């Protein structure tokens, strides 16, 4: 009985967090296409960079995941490539510029990718 209850609570919590992550998928796609993200990232397939699914799994259940990814996209931070060399990650651009809501929406979409 105890076990069942925990399951129920977990399920409710999961559906809540899923709701919290319900991004505007169309807008997210548009922003990713506009920025050429898909040249280097598959949704579920690794390319030069990890698939969005992989990123979602990496961050699942972590606090601050959203903020961290927003920062990743805005800062052009140094990343490590497969061969060990380094380069700056692409900085995302929005129309109009610096629209935090659009970037956040894309990040929420990325974090919500399911296998």
């Amino acid at each position, binding site marked *: 009985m105890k076990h069942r209850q925990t399951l129920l609570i977990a399920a409710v919590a999961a559906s809540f967090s899923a709701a919290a992550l319900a991004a505007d*998928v169309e807008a997210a*796609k*548009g922003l990713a*296409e*506009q920025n*050429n993200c*898909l*040249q*280097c990232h*598959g*949704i*579920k*397939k690794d390319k*030069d960079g990890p698939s969005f699914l992989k990123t979602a799994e990496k961050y699942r259940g972590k606090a601050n995941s959203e903020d961290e990814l927003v920062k990743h996209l805005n800062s052009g931070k140094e990343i490590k*490539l497969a061969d060990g*060399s380094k*380069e*700056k990650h*692409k900085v995302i*651009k929005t*129309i*109009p*510029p610096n629209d935090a809501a659009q970037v956040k929406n894309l990040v929420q979409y990325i974090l919500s990718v399911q296998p």
Partner: protein
Amino acid sequence: MSNSGSNRGGTGWWAALRRPSAKYSLIALLTAGFAGGIIFWGAFNTGMEATNTLEFCVGCHEMRDTVFEEYKYSIHYSNRTGVRAVCSDCHVPKDWTHKLIRKVKASGEIWGKLTGSIATKEKFEAKRLQLATNEWERMKARDSIECRNCHSFDAMSPEKQQQTPYKKHMQAKLEGASCIDCHKGIAHKLPKGYKDPNAKDAEEW
């Protein structure tokens, strides 16, 4: 009989035009014709150039509120080095034959405005995917010549460019891929309904 001579020469301006000139030498006439030609050609060219300016292109509202607004936020409008690409740099071929063809086609687009097929922002938005597809095809057909008037694979520095894009560019050069294959939406928002071929795994999205 005595009249026929003067009749053959005729009177009035038409006759004067037809009569071999006694007053002006052939050289003078040729010079005048040449100068006239230059003036005509110059005026024609000026017209062609006038319609190539940023102001002309955004003169109509549909452009000003949409593609121009988006372009103003782009790197081709304002950047570190102050080199600006204006509408015609990307949309009007530099050489004569292609330029003329494009202008005639553009007249068709103005027709679209006059007859109302793109006369409102909504109608324009509805046509954008079609207009964009036309531009992609036109650019692709000439290997993105407009982009390459300013950019080239050979001028890309392996040190200054990030290495993943650099590798992609060198690969693209080998494979004969064209700028527009990978750089759509470089100056404007991608139209609604556009599908990125890079999301090949269509079920992905």
